[in-house]
């Protein structure tokens, strides 16, 4: 009986992923954004916190709920973002809980995303709304209490979201067999990075899925006051983005 109860208690960890999860999940998201901004700055790139009006700010507002790019003329409190310029000269923005619109017309919240500024500016110029397509970096975050295994649905939803935002993301290259040889087309935009970061353990089955479709998985990240994992993921992402 004791063994059964112990086994049940362990199994129940899956049905009890987190407590007051919305709040702690948001903290996890905010921590990831700041660490990523710091990692980019650590590579010698100037990173500027900006208000929704595009002005430097020392008061940073995060989206508590999924949301759009606001109007720059809005006089209400609106979310901030980080702005930086990559080595190629392209300007990028780092946002939290921003909604992107897929080919289906459905909108998808991305916990942490990095997107070219010119794409966001187009949205601003039409008075705000969701950003179309896949961002340069899409990071899905899942905070769970210690000892939990990430439910497989998490990676399925990331996969479906990335596919709807950019179906070509799924296909690495296309090979055309001609009469006298083959021609290979790169279809995947290698600026499109998809990551799933979690404090939970990731099962072998989920890892297989991620490996096959090119979703970078990061497990056991950021619990018990140990944020070395978050710094490592941020460093990797910053390297890819710069």
């Amino acid at each position: 009986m004791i063994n059964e109860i112990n086994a049940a208690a362990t199994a129940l960890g899956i049905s009890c992923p987190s407590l007051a999860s919305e709040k702690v999940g948001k903290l996890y998201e905010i921590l990831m954004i700041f660490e990523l901004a710091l990692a980019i700055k650590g590579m010698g790139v100037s990173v500027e916190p900006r208000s929704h009006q595009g002005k430097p700010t020392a008061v940073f507002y995060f989206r508590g709920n999924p949301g759009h790019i606001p109007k720059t003329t809005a006089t209400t409190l609106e979310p901030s973002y980080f702005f930086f310029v990559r080595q190629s000269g392209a300007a990028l923005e780092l946002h939290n809980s921003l909604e992107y619109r897929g080919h289906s017309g459905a909108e998808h919240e991305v916990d942490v995303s990095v997107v070219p500024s010119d794409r966001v500016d187009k949205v601003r110029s039409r008075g705000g709304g969701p950003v179309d397509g896949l961002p340069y970096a899409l990071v899905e975050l899942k905070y769970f209490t210690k000892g939990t295994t990430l439910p497989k649905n998490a990676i399925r939803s990331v996969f479906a979201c990335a596919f709807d935002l950019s179906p070509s993301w799924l296909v690495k290259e296309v090979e055309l067999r001609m009469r006298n040889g083959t021609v290979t087309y790169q279809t995947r935009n290698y600026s499109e990075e998809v990551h799933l970061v979690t404090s939970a353990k990731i099962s072998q089955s989920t890892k297989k899925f991620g490996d096959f479709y090119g979703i970078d998985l990061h497990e056991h990240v950021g619990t018990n006051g140990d944020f070395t994992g978050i710094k490592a993921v941020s460093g990797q992402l910053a390297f890819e983005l710069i």
Partner: protein
Amino acid sequence: MAVIDEDVRRLINQLLESPLSWLGREIMTEVEGLTRLVTVEQLTREHAFTQLRIFERRALEVVKDQRAMVQAVASSASELGVREVKILWEDEGVEDMLGEARQARLSDFERAIKESVSAAEAAIAGRYP
């Protein structure tokens, strides 16, 4: 088929009606999960205590994680030239992430977890002397 013990259900319902209703829901999830494996007769006070202790440990881990994250965010924000960090909630308005009020809320949360679990333990002990 196992059915949850009515006395235990009643005690949990008390929690569900309290301001800490999420606490009751989590315990209910755990206890109902257990009943899939054990019978009504076997779901005794010890089993309920076991679940409460598991719950308490997890809840306190979450508070500990939150404290550590807030400290880490404060440190990173400072390095990035950010003085204040706020969250815009649709229903709850603006939440100050780094202010004293948040630290106080975490302490309240921690105290409420301990008090609720103690109260639930006492209630169960009363029902199953």
